[in-house]
């Protein structure tokens, strides 16, 4: 029933070519244990499909339950502004079990990012609007929990391990007629 209303665009953090036959969009929350479990699965899928897949990650912090989800998302955006989004993203998920404000600063420091600058960005909410826009866009697309995946724009209900994701991606790839010429959107 639910479909992605906002296709991958220039504001997204993307891995893979924009003209890949299949797109995978994830809405995630850095403090959600299920999202933490999903990231290594996504990495396997990315490695498996290579240039056959275009993947985008969007923020969906359920702040009332996960108070650190929003600061973590803003910290990832801060790193992104310095060209280090995926490095920070992976580091946050890898340290999900011990997530704290201190952890966020330590991870940023490991990437060579300036602590005072990060503190300032979090206090000023420099990246809050981007995180909020991701969240609201997700709501309008029917995101109903995290992680929430869309394969070629359709919400995937059910399991999100590498096998389940791969099989959904393969099904979507086979749905595209081979005689259709794809025009890159971004």
């Amino acid at each position, binding site marked *: 029933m639910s479909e992605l209303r906002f296709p991958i665009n220039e504001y997204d953090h993307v891995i893979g070519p924009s003209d890949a036959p299949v797109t995978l969009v994830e809405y995630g929350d850095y403090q*959600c244990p299920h999202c933490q479990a999903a990231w290594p699965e996504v990495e396997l899928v990315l490695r498996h499909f290579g240039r056959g897949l275009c993947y985008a990650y969007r923020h969906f912090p*359920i702040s*009332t*339950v996960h108070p650190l989800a929003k600061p973590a998302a803003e910290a990832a955006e801060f790193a992104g502004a310095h060209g280090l989004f995926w490095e920070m993203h992976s580091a946050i998920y890898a340290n999900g079990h011990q997530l704290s404000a201190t952890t966020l600063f330590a991870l940023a420091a490991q990437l060579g990012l300036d602590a005072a600058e990060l503190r300032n960005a979090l206090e000023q909410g420099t990246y809050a609007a981007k995180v909020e826009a991701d969240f609201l866009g997700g*709501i*309008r697309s029917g*995101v*109903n*929990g*995290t992680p929430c995946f869309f394969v070629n724009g359709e919400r995937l209900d059910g399991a999100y391990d590498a096998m389940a994701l791969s099989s959904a991606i393969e099904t979507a790839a086979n749905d595209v007629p081979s005689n259709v010429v794809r025009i890159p959107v971004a």
Partner: protein
Amino acid sequence: MGEILQPGAKAPDFTAPVTPDQKLSLNDLKGRRVILAFYPADWSPVCGDQMSLYNMVLPEFRKHGAELLGISVDGAWCHQAYARANQFHFPLIADFHPKGEIAKSYGAYRDSEGVAERALFILDETGHVIWSYLSPMAVNPGADGILDALERMPRLETTDV
């Protein structure tokens, strides 16, 4: 199980506990738009459960002048603990005694399991159903259907929220 109430139907009134010592009547909300969200049970074992999600979307619902009421067959004490643990900022109605009476009146009671269905209703200012949706019990329906339906309603003349 029959069918849930469809658009055009008059929404059955109810008076039921929202806290151990407070009751709420649907009639009290007359003149306002109301979202009734029936759900099977408090304490779903997932992070972004339906009520937590709606709690996050509350500002959007209120922009459309709509009040949200969650309803399940759980008792008022259970609701209170659940709402506190998740910092809900909307009332949870206890459809506890007689059990499921409100859900039954909306056609949203699952007799075999003794719980409310995952059913959504939007009521207009006159207390009529303008949109309803029955979700498979295991699927959190999200908030997109509600927001789409609210957007299709005529714009409110007043902006008192």
